[in-house]
């Protein structure tokens, strides 16, 4: 019983900091998924236009982002970019976090959007073109509405990846959930296991519903057959 009271005391004492950390995790992940999806959507559409050099260029971009760990990308954007002597590349830690996470997200979204567009039967766009629509119109009114519906389940998985990636941001000193936990442990070094478990529970409560939604959306909107992570 005493053990229980002790642990409850820790929760009571830490919850304001934890909630603040959760808020920053939420904020960064939302900003990153917004910019990442926008960039990824544009690149994904460009990739399906079947312009050879453009496709090669986008594939190179994807390979670089998918082939290196997020931690390395974060370090490069936070530590290497300022050495270029360009004023606006001199990011503070928050901007560096958002920029790197957005780029990282865009690599997933590009692939999802491109494969969703390819998954729309080619008869759809052919029929649209043969009724006199321009290529832009067939994309706008026929292909994209069908494709975007199919991106919903994998986008939810991408959002979970983004949330999990924000934990890495603690290494550049962003005060998100993981960082708050590290600070809490400096204050109460006796309860390492409990505090980290608490953080894990916070992440679980945040990510699990999104994963469930992704699963449900798969039955509703169908799968694209691409594996993330």
């Amino acid at each position, binding site marked *: 019983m005493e053990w229980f009271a002790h642990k409850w005391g820790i929760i009571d004492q830490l919850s304001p900091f934890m909630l603040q950390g959760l808020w920053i995790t939420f904020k960064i992940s939302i900003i990153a998924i917004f910019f990442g999806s926008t960039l990824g959507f544009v690149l994904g559409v460009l990739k399906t236009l079947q312009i050879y050099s453009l496709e090669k260029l986008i594939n190179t971009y994807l390979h670089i982002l998918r082939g*290196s760990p997020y*931690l*390395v990308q974060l370090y490069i954007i936070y530590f290497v970019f300022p050495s270029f002597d360009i004023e606006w590349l001199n990011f503070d830690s928050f901007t560096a976090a958002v920029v790197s996470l957005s780029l990282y997200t865009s690599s997933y979204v590009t692939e999802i959007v491109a494969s969703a567009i390819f998954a729309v039967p080619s008869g759809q766009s052919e029929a649209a073109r043969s009724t006199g629509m321009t290529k832009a119109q067939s994309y706008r009114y026929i292909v994209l509405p069908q494709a975007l519906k199919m991106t919903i389940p994998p986008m939810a998985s991408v959002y*979970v990846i983004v949330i999990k990636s924000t934990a890495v941001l603690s290494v550049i000193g962003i005060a998100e959930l993981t960082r708050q936990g590290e600070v809490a442990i400096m204050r109460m070094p006796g309860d390492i296991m409990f505090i980290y*478990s608490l953080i894990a529970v916070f992440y679980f409560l945040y990510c699990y519903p999104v994963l469930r939604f992704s699963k449900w959306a798969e039955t509703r909107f169908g799968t694209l057959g691409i594996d993330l992570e």
Partner: protein
Amino acid sequence: MDWLQSIFNFRIVFQYWEVFAQGITNTILISAICLVLSLIFGIFIALARRSSNPLIWRPVAVYIQAIRSTPLLIQIYLIYYGLPSILPFGNFLDETQTGIIALTIHTTPYMGEIIRAGLESVDRGQIEGALSVGMSRKQTMTNVVLPQAIANVVPPLLGQTAVLIKDTSLLSIIAVFELMGAGLRMFSETVIATESYVTTAVCYLAIYAMMLVISGMVQRKLGGSAWQAN
């Protein structure tokens, strides 16, 4: 060549090539060990997940969801900092061993889900057909189910292995010496960020390129055998 030297100092990178070679070796070694372990455990996870006994599949499902819904960094912290603080015998493993354990625990559910999907991808009719022509259960498994399942499983497994290699970079945070650790060491000794981190990234991309080549070869091989079977 002076302008190039002022942008990217190759001389310093060459001074550190041994550190990076060691880092790459360690990264590949750690990933290989984790890959083998998580494949072995993944098979058990996949079989347990398919079990009809709720006492078996429910805990496994909880484990899978718990791992998938929490960041790897937290899992590493839990095992590296958390476990020794509650175990009576304290910290008896070094960083690398702890890192391998943490990564294995993290990767096993993903491998298990891939294997399970592979087993389920084989059509029931295939099994029924094999049994009805008089094959035993064991023959059905080895001659009909497994060859098809493996062909379906290998591409996502290779993808997961690429993720595993990238994930080893997080072990540098608990001071395991691997590729990212090599970059961090170079940075701490020379304090030039560009050369240290860009070299690290290039090394990771080289490993990734190697993975792409291997996966292309394997896919051709599997495609070839499937074609011969027809």
